[in-house]
């Protein structure tokens, strides 16, 4: 029988591609998930620390922690769980920093006093169009950054997770490791403080 070259399946030449491990479907989903949250996570960490390098380290730690502890959880739970890990890293960072700089507390005004301020004085004027709308893009971004950095950690996280990330109250509470009532309180105070701070800047 004559064998036509077309009927022979020639083996493709093998080439060494190194110790590459083909990602599984789960791993690809995990990769996509981390890709979807990493930038916002970095900005949150940056707002908390004020330093990009520290923020990058914290996000990397959060990714490690998330993959280690929660990668096998249902994908629908990943967002609050990832932010739970990040929130925990931010809290740890904040605690360490507080201990280190305690001796400086006399000279700096603590931004972590949630109970300060007169809530009636902070109540918004309903006829005002809002603070950021009166500023140009760059100024607004800079002022928003400053106002967010001035917020206490819990208030800032409540604002960012709830307003920016769009988590509902239950997931925000899960991410922050607190009750839903605390989330509402933190958010309410964050909104009042932001409005006031941005008014001052405008």
């Amino acid at each position, binding site marked *: 029988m004559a064998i036509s070259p077309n009927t022979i399946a020639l083996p493709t030449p093998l080439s060494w591609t190194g110790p590459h491990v083909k990602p599984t479907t789960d791993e690809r989903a*995990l990769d996509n998930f981390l890709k979807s949250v990493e930038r916002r996570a970095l900005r949150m960490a940056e707002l908390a620390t004020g330093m990009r390098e520290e923020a990058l380290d914290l996000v990397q730690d959060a990714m490690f922690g998330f993959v280690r502890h929660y990668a096998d959880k249902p994908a629908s739970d990943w967002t609050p769980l990832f932010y739970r890990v990040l929130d925990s890293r931010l809290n740890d960072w904040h605690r360490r920093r507080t201990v280190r700089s305690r001796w400086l507390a006399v000279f700096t005004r603590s931004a972590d006093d949630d109970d300060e301020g007169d809530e009636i004085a902070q109540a918004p004027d309903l006829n005002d169009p809002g603070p950021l709308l009166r500023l140009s893009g760059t100024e607004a971004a800079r002022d928003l950054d400053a106002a967010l950095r001035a917020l206490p950690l819990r208030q800032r996280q409540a604002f960012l997770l709830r307003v920016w990330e769009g988590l509902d109250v239950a997931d925000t509470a899960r991410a922050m490791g607190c009750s839903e009532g605390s989330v509402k309180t933190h958010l309410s105070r964050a909104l009042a403080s932001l409005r006031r701070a941005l008014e001052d800047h405008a």
Partner: protein
Amino acid sequence: MNTPQTPRDGGWLEQSKRLLDDSAEHLDAATLSRLNRARQAALGRGRRRVREWLPVGALATCSMLVALVMVQGRWHGHAGGTPELPLDAHAAAAGDVDLVSSEDSLEFYQDLEFYAWLEAQQQDQDLGS
């Protein structure tokens, strides 16, 4: 969005979200590269962890099986009034471990009665001839 806000908060909150989105969108290349490396490192560590723990898990399972068989053998020994596990019990225990750990020989053990019968037949034939 279901945040506790006044009707006019919508405008500046929406703008805040846009500004934050912009800041996350326009990160510099070096930062994006660091994030990418961090992500790959986290995924790689997860992968390595699974690979590292698999043999440990297998070893632990085997050890547990051996321990179970030994304990069972010893317990049976005590129940029968003998303080020490007899040698043939040790051999039986080792056989059980062999049986559990070796999938290939499972058929042999299942056909053991047949082989015994075959041997008996051959002995009968030898005696008859």
